[in-house]
């Protein structure tokens, strides 16, 4: 693969990589015939992002495909962040950047050319590993809401940086967005915030099933922040509680597809994407192709039975299993009045009729 990125797009790529770095520790590159694809997935496979840079993003783009094999590689995020950390931020912007990836080479080369007779050549060693692919089934999407990044940024302003999750409760009349506080013990520690938005605030608003989805704020913040820089819109596609959501950002020269797991209802833990969407591993031909979404989590305390649980379990590392059981409480629903003995009521609702 060989491509040349014009000066003005180097900064765009730099911001894209910055946003991706909020997700995973590695970046995957795939040289498809019509676009260069950048991907990242987080360790717990609860967030996965694909960015397609179309041919018009580049001055020249040659995929250099051999046969049916798509040329691909895996790089440490830290390394590529270093290569793109400040190029384009300074007065002297690079004129262009050339990226070269050769079949079965152990490194990828980035060449930057500056106006004032300076050139920088950076090479990064490739990591071993499979290319991961997550296939999101769009036919299942029943709900979507879309708005400019600015609207979402205003919503995020009401949350604290320490907030980890965000939940969206939708009805056809309104959307309630809250910072989800996991675990009962933290209830007394943090601010619980809720903002209600009317459908008119959104550019797209279609709710077929009233539902409530909760997902991690980390990747969402990065996506909103990125989209805000280029005045783009975000479209959040989702099904129901516990099923992954797809956040889309589109532009003529690139598109971003960000798939994010949502918290499951009641006692359940956070679902991993690998359990709820089609996941394929390329190169070593291992494929997990589930026809039905399945639930990988056993109920640790034995109560409740998810209907999905009849399908065989998907492979899962024992390590992540352990983590989930240790932090199981963290994924519990926030507010269950019956769960706690409140004892004597010190302060009753002062204004009970209003809400």
């Amino acid at each position, binding site marked *: 693969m060989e491509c040349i990125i014009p000066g003005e797009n180097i900064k765009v790529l730099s911001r894209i990589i910055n946003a991706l770095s909020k997700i995973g520790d590695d970046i995957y590159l795939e040289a498809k015939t019509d676009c260069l694809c950048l991907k990242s997935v987080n360790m717990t496979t609860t967030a996965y992002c694909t960015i397609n840079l179309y041919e018009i993003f580049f001055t020249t783009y040659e995929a250099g495909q051999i046969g049916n094999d798509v040329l691909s590689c895996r790089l440490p995020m830290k390394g590529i962040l270093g290569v793109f950390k400040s190029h384009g931020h300074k007065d002297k912007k690079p004129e262009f950047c050339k990226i070269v990836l050769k079949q079965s080479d152990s490194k990828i080369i980035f060449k930057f050319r500056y106006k*004032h007779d300076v050139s920088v050549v950076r090479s990064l060693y490739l990591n071993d590993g499979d290319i991961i692919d997550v296939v999101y089934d769009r036919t299942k999407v029943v709900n979507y809401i879309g708005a400019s990044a600015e609207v979402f940024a205003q919503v995020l302003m009401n949350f604290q940086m320490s907030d980890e999750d965000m939940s969206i409760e939708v009805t056809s009349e309104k959307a309630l967005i809250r910072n989800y506080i996991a675990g009962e013990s933290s209830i007394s520690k943090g601010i619980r915030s809720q903002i209600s938005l009317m459908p008119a605030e959104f550019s797209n608003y279609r709710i077929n099933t009233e539902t409530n989805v909760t997902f991690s704020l980390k990747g969402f913040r990065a996506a909103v922040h990125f989209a805000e820089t280029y005045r783009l819109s975000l479209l959040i596609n989702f099904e129901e509680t516990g099923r992954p959501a797809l956040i889309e950002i589109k532009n003529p020269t690139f598109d971003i597809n960000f798939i994010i797991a949502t918290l499951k209802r009641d006692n359940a833990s956070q679902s991993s994407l690998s359990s709820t969407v089609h996941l394929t591993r390329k190169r070593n031909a291992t494929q997990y192709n589930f026809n039905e979404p399945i639930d990988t989590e056993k109920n640790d305390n034995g109560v409740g039975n998810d209907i999905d649980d009849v399908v065989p379990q998907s492979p899962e590392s024992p390590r992540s299993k352990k983590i989930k059981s240790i932090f199981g409480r963290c994924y519990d629903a926030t507010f269950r009045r019956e769960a706690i003995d409140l004892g004597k009521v010190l302060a009753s609702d002062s204004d009970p009729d209003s809400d």
Partner: protein
Amino acid sequence: METYFSAELTDFKTLYNVLKAITFKEYATLRPMEEGLKVTIEEMKCVETSAYIPVQMFESYYVRPQEDVKFKLSLKILTETLFIYGDDGNLSLKMTYKGPGFPLCLIIKHNDENITVDCQIYTMDVDESTDFLCLADECTLNKVVVNANQFLDILTDLDNTSDDLDLFLSPNPPYFRISTTSTMGESQTDISKNSEMVLLFQCENEFQAKYSFNYIKQILKVMNFANKVSISTGETGLLGLQLLINEDAKQMYVEYYITSMFEDDR
């Protein structure tokens, strides 16, 4: 009272910025000389940093003739004191040193707010054995003068995780090459002698040496305030960076010397 050294300054923002940026160590030696004041920080005998403030920078300047005036003090305290009013302007500073055993006295007036700060920074005698070699005389092999901003950009863009930095100078292309190697990859930056950022290029023979990247990083902070950087090298691999810092029509300098790392047998 026979004063060893006294001086007055009105605008010392740049002086503060420069001294603050080179406070790598707690203590510094101050040497008021006839031509100006020299502040020197030494680290482990392989790096030496000096700020040189020519007499022209001062409103008034006196140093006792025929006396090698030098004393040590806490550079951190001195810089904090110079910044006592924060970014507020219209200040005047007077400093006096009465001689060995006396503190350095500073009086800083805030002329808008009617505030006076007086300060005595205790001094120490300088170890007599400390030699002040003229390192500039050793760096005579090659000389390259570059625009400081652009050179700083290049240095900050280098792979941060690299432990060392390889410098290569040649009369032929690539002329000036900086290379790094780290666990993640390699980098090579080539600056042509014809580049607009190169103001002077004097190189007769090829020169190659390796330096600790950490030592180079130290100097980047003060390079922010510089206009030009003069890079010179010596026989033993000694690297000299002379930073020219302009303030209005006046100039001050920072000199930075680093010894090269021992080379692997090649």
